[in-house]
């Protein structure tokens, strides 16, 4: 190939050593939701790693077929968890996407994602516009209080069931510092976009619970999107900007913890900031690591601070099942939410088959591969319904959206709730 242009492989070179660790044993075939949906090797971790290796060797290009393979990943980390050689395929896919974005440009969708997540004001406007224009585009789905598109929009397939946008974003409802009792922990609340604009009740529940424990809760107004939607599209420049803003926002206050109620945001702060941003920008590594160390999931922190769900949680009988969000499971957070939930009066937990399996959302995966995403989701929906539970409970607003979509399509009336909503039920009823 004489007239081949030189492609920029710097991103991949950063992870060359990680690529060498893969021995192509095939263990990832057992755990990859994308592979389960497609059944072909380019969709599985081992295949993507082989392609990344060949990119570095220079015998394939950052072309459509490479793009197609790299796009078939939910960044769920299942392969990493079960890999005998601990190959970080999720990080490898992110940098491969970075290389692809550099070479091919960001997709129109990811350009739009970047514009939105870089700009809080735009996001606020979007939320406002969504509320006002909503009825034009959406019709209400009464059963689940969600919305359904009246006709397809770009990037949003006609089939997608969208949750309703909140009347007032969570962060606009509260002051930056909500003082607690002296001597009690000071907690920085990293809210995340889904909680701020859509599932505000999750934010309210978190706030109520930590105030109940006497904590000072600080919600820095200048916090941004965690950046994971950009990371999943390879838009690392945007993510770097966001990470720097978030680092600054969260470093402004002395605090004991940075708390997240969104598994995805938690995963970004805890894992991907050091692994992807820190690796690319060594000057940020130390700050990323310090933030990662402070970051803790709300349920884990509640348990650590000794929350007694008997004082705060639901009183009514409620049969639930629990879904493990990938970005909690891969951080070994599976036991704590279950322990809190089962200690809540009236709550009965019926485990579903494959509670640890990905719901199929995969950040922006569901946008490009909606059908595969819902194929992955079908097994999940069936497992939820089979438990006979009244509600499926989870720790990630992203999963909540995907689970609602799947249940809605299946005509199920099973409700979708966040762990914190159950734990804070009594607090929220009697303010």
């Amino acid at each position, binding site marked *: 190939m004489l007239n081949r242009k030189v492609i920029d492989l710097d991103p991949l070179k950063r992870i060359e050593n990680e690529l*060498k*660790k893969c*021995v*192509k*044993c*095939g*263990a*990832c*075939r*057992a755990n990859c939701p994308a592979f389960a949906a497609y*059944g*072909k*090797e*380019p969709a599985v971790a*081992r*295949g993507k790693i*082989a*392609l990344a290796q*060949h990119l570095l060797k220079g*015998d*394939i290009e950052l072309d459509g*077929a*490479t793009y*197609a*393979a790299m796009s078939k990943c939910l960044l769920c980390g299942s392969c990493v968890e079960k890999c*005998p*050689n*601990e190959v970080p395929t999720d990080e490898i896919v992110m940098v491969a996407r970075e290389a692809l974005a550099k070479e091919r440009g960001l997709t129109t969708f990811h350009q739009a994602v970047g514009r939105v997540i870089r700009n809080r004001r735009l996001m606020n406007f979007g939320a406002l516009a969504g509320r006002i224009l909503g009825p034009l585009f959406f019709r209400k789905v009464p059963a689940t209080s969600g919305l359904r598109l009246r006709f397809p929009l770009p990037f949003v397939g006609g089939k997608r069931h969208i949750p309703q946008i909140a009347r007032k974003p969570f962060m606009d409802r509260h002051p930056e510092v909500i003082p607690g009792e002296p001597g009690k922990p000071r907690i920085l609340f990293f809210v995340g976009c889904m909680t701020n604009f859509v599932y505000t009740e999750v934010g309210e529940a978190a706030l109520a619970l930590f105030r109940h424990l006497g904590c000072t809760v600080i919600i820095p107004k200048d916090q941004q999107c965690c950046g994971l939607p950009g990371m999943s599209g390879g838009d690392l420049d945007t993510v770097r900007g966001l990470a720097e803003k978030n680092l600054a926002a969260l470093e402004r206050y002395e605090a004991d913890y940075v708390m997240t109620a969104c598994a995805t945001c938690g995963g970004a702060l805890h894992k991907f900031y050091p692994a992807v941003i820190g690796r690319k920008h060594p000057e940020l590594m130390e700050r990323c690591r310090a933030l990662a160390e402070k970051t803790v999931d709300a349920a884990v922190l509640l348990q650590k601070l000794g929350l007694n769900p008997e004082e705060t949680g639901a009183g009514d009988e409620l049969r639930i099942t629990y879904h493990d969000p990938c970005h909690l499971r891969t951080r070994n957070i599976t036991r704590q939410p279950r322990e809190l939930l089962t200690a809540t009066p009236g709550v009965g937990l019926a485990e579903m088959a494959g509670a640890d399996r990905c719901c199929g959302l995969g950040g922006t995966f569901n946008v490009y591969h909606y059908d595969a995403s819902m194929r992955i989701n079908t097994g999940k929906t069936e497992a939820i319904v089979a438990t006979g539970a009244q509600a499926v409970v989870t720790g990630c607003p992203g999963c909540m959206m995907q689970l609602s979509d799947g249940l809605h399509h299946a005509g199920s009336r099973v409700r979708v709730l966040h762990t914190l909503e159950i734990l804070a039920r009594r607090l929220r009823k009697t303010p």
Partner: protein
Amino acid sequence: MLDTRILDELRKIVGTDQVATDRQDLICYGYDATQMEFLPDAVVHPGSTEEVAAILKLANREGIPVFPRGAGSGFTGGALPKGGGIVLVVTRLNRILRIDTENLIAEVEPGVVTEQFQLAVEKLGLFYPPDPASLKFSTLGGNVAENAGGPRCVKYGVTRDFVMGLEVVLPTGEIIRTGGETYKGVVGYDLTRLLCGSEGSLGVITKIIFKLLPLPEAKKTMLTIFDSIDGAAKAVSAIIGGKIIPTTLEFMDYATLTCVERRFSLGIPAEGRAVLLIEVDGDRDLIEKQAERIHEIIRPLGLVQFKVAKDAAESEALWRVRRLVSPSLRDVNPDKFNEDIVVPRSKVPDVIRRIEKIQQRYDIPIVNFGHAGDGNIHVNVMIDKQVEGQEEKAHEAIAEVFRAALDLSGTMSGEHGVGLAKQPYIHLELTQAQVAAMQAIKKALDPNNILNPGKMFPVEI
């Protein structure tokens, strides 16, 4: 690159979506766990026996090599498209066709993942014992073609011992059935046994009839640590000599223990030199007695630690020691050659001692673990391919290890097969007359040498 005419014919047979020729797709079907790589010309995913037959007819007519492939998790390159041709992936044929609880048999397609099949029969109180380490992702077709083993084989036997019948597409495209659904059957040659372990060189397996067993009521796991390799080896013979056949007798040598302990700090006693992971299964009261009896038998043999799991969670914790071996090995050196010699079980200490000498002579770390109960030892020669001369040295050391196994009435490979990886050594074990007999069979079934050519035998027919 195949002619457009041939690609069009392939597309007509399996559908356009099921023929891939993009370089990216070819790369993704050109590797396996050997880490060797070859690029095929096309990857084809047939959806039925008839499609497999049509592909083979076409390939046979045109003289195009065909490489059958399941999960591509083999350790010897059996599925690798060396020299180019068509990779024939059977993973779309992934249905469990029936589980017959009256006759204790099941019929499956080759693309079913081993563990999925095990879970399906266990739901009905039945049992399919073969348990290769790759069972969570390997396919049953691949298991049969490679005659896979696993830890439980010491009591139950290998994959071959559970195969009753096959549907096979011959290299010329004919579809035949071998064996059947009855335990007895002596009409004609036993082609079923010939095909088990034939490494995809004699036919493409499209259906398998398996024998099943009743699922044992319970199992009991014991982790035992000895102060010498001899103690552990004597324990193996003493337990079996004591008329107890455990389900599993997994062994780890000192080098393996050191690796695992250094990486994961499991608290293995410092005086420990070898580990035996023992599992018994059967009726609940029987296995209680067996566990006590085993303790009595091995106590005088330099036993440093004896742990019995009380429940499934504790059993899993004991197995963890074994499962952590693979990830720890990389700390020794980045590259490994994983060989799987077998010796009669009483000769395990002898072969370990010989390997120790080989290790010293060649100055390369060799880590041994595996299935002591049937004398099947995984010999891991750990090297760094970046260091000049190490790979050559490793090959010489491996040849020495094979000679040692053969010298002790053993074999070069108990589970992994020959494929490409062991091809250069096959003359150490097989005489010319043996090879000639095998090649005559190959030639009779595959006159144009299109099915998985260039494997197993070093010389082309």
